[in-house]
């Protein structure tokens, strides 16, 4: 197993769609083989088509709002007193999170394929919100599958999805969170794949969905590498890129251009959801060495019991509350190219408090996990180390949780 420097990570799989011969693949019912094959053909054609790329870039620039800001967090850096802390404010993107990139590309593909309907899953509600936005923009009818528990805790995004004219389908099976939403969405696609396109909300699922999502979110690092060279003249000698990891779409997108660098120069740190301190449940399969298994069509490290039933997870952050993780991250872990660790619910909340106290930035609970680890590690680092945290979502969707956990004045802390 080796990393190829000149090839994108999303393309480093074998003919069975497996990375490193052990992660990813297409463990799907026969019915989905054909629609997946059609999507593979369409995507491989369009990703090299100049007209399609120009269209994508136009939407990213004019509609999504590229590039998102790359800013230094001066107050926070001074307070911590170690490395320089920067942030890529991906939550600047239209809709408030990175999910817009994948949603836009899937809608563009669906349009090219002549599909009139698109369905998608969502946890935190951002993937659903963005898909409903993009579907509206491109004139597609849209259904969003969402766990009943997530519908309750991410109300603001549910309202937004409905406002965009999409239907929200509550999922009551299992733990009523993202894992069940993805299963239900796939089942729906099995029954309707002749008329309907499916968007998997992260770099998970059958091989092609991992690829399309990774290709789409890579916009983040394409912008970042230019911004970094612009600010520092070249890639700094010590650069550390922190990102939360649930399914892994924002982190892959944030790291994509930097994977080819030596890890002593550019370190990649993925932060998973450790769950409540007092709970044994978590959503951190990479950190806690979960076994390899199949979830949603792909081999990956996944929380499961001895016989292979998928475990229930627990995290304050709906977007990270997933028992598996992208095969891309499993591959990066095994290659030791990225380092994975976890932050607890409480650590994420504290990081949220700290960031909002010192900076005019409101990271949602997902990137707050990344901030928790970044701020903690930055203390012990030298001033010429550049720490960059991807603030990939806006906290507005979390207002009910934050109010409940931090009190009424949670957003007036600073």
């Amino acid at each position, binding site marked *: 197993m080796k990393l190829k420097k000149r090839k994108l990570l999303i393309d480093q799989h074998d003919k069975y769609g497996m990375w490193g011969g052990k992660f990813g693949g297409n463990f799907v019912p026969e019915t989905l083989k054909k629609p997946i094959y059609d999507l593979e053909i369409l995507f491989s054609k369009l990703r090299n088509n100049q007209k399609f790329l120009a269209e994508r870039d136009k939407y990213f620039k004019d509609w999504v709002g590229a590039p998102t800001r790359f800013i230094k967090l001066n107050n926070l850096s001074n307070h911590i007193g170690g490395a320089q802390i920067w942030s890529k404010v991906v939550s600047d993107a239209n809709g408030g999170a990175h999910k817009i990139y994948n949603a836009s590309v899937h809608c563009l593909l669906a349009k090219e394929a002549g599909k009139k309907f698109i369905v998608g899953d969502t946890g935190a509600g951002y993937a659903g919100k963005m898909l409903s936005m993009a579907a509206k923009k491109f004139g597609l009818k849209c259904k969003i599958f969402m766990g009943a528990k997530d519908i309750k805790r991410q109300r603001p995004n549910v309202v937004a999805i409905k406002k965009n004219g999409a239907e929200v389908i509550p999922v009551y099976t299992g733990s009523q969170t993202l894992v069940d939403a993805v299963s239900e969405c796939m089942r729906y696609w099995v029954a309707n794949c002749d008329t309907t396109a499916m968007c998997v909300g992260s770099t998970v699922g059958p091989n092609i969905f991992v690829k399309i999502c990774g290709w789409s979110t890579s916009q983040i690092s394409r912008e970042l590498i230019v911004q970094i060279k612009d600010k520092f003249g070249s890639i700094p000698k010590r650069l550390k890129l922190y990102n939360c990891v649930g399914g892994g779409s924002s982190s892959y997108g944030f790291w994509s251009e930097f994977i080819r660098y030596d890890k002593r120069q550019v370190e990649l740190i993925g932060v998973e959801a450790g769950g409540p301190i007092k709970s044994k449940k978590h959503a951190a399969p990479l950190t806690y060495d979960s076994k390899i*298994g*199949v979830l949603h069509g792909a081999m990956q490290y996944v929380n499961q019991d001895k*016989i*292979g*039933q998928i475990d229930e997870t627990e995290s304050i952050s709906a977007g990270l509350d997933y028992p598996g993780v992208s095969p891309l991250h499993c591959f990066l872990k095994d290659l030791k190219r990225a380092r994975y660790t976890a932050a607890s619910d409480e650590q994420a909340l504290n990081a949220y408090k700290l960031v909002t106290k010192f900076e005019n930035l409101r990271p949602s609970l997902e990137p707050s996990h990344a901030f928790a680890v970044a701020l903690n590690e930055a203390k012990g680092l030298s001033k010429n180390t550049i720490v960059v945290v991807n603030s990939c979502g806006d906290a507005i969707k979390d207002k009910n949780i934050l109010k409940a956990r931090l009190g009424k004045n949670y957003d007036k802390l600073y």
Partner: protein
Amino acid sequence: MINYINLAFKKSKKEKRPLLLTYTVAGDSTKQKSLEILRSISKYADICELGFPHNTPIADGGQIQTSAYRAIKNGIKTSDVFKIVKDFKKDKFSTPIILMGYYNLIYQFGENNFLNECKKSGVNGIIVVDLPWPENKKFALKCKRRNICFVQLISPTTSYDRAKKIIKDSHDMIYYISMLSTTGAKLKVSPSEIYKNYSKLKNINPKKNYVVGFGITEKSIKKLNFADGLVVGSAICKEITKSLKYRQNAVTNVSRIVMNLKKLIS
């Protein structure tokens, strides 16, 4: 070595009727109950499919999901599934048992371990919902070496060329999915269209046995009696759920349905 699946097809062909396959979930509603149900319906069913339940199924509809969750809640483990088959086979050795489920449970048990246990307990065939061709080639070969039939699936979305390749690599039995759907939905295509697709497959290799499944109930089964075999699953799982709800005897209720299904195609 006697091939009981082939024998079952020969018998039903002699009787000029499709073979009847039932699907129940191992451990639904308890281990003992599912064994009793299996024993009772095997009076009428020619082949019994036994599901090993998984909690993130991506191709099952509501009825089978409910059965699966019930079984998992009652603590069913992969080893229990083999125990049920073994107990069943003690007095019904010639009724073929086909295990059906998702790949992760096989993977966690270990492919070779799983197949050895199959052999020991008397399993005759295996269907793995999420291990399509060509990914399943190696596993299918392992099955063949142990005289276990690996059942390939073909769906309405499968292209003709692909179907030819799948059939070439198939063993004695092929499972044709009647429509684009999860299990247990209403039959949304006409029997004549299913017949058309079925005949295309049958013509590729008439020697193979083709069974049709998905959407088959007491209502629709008669119209599909052109097939070599017909699978009924969700209708049975639904009856178990109903029996539990009204505190009735699931064993007798389910048997009555299976008896009726058999009558309808005889």
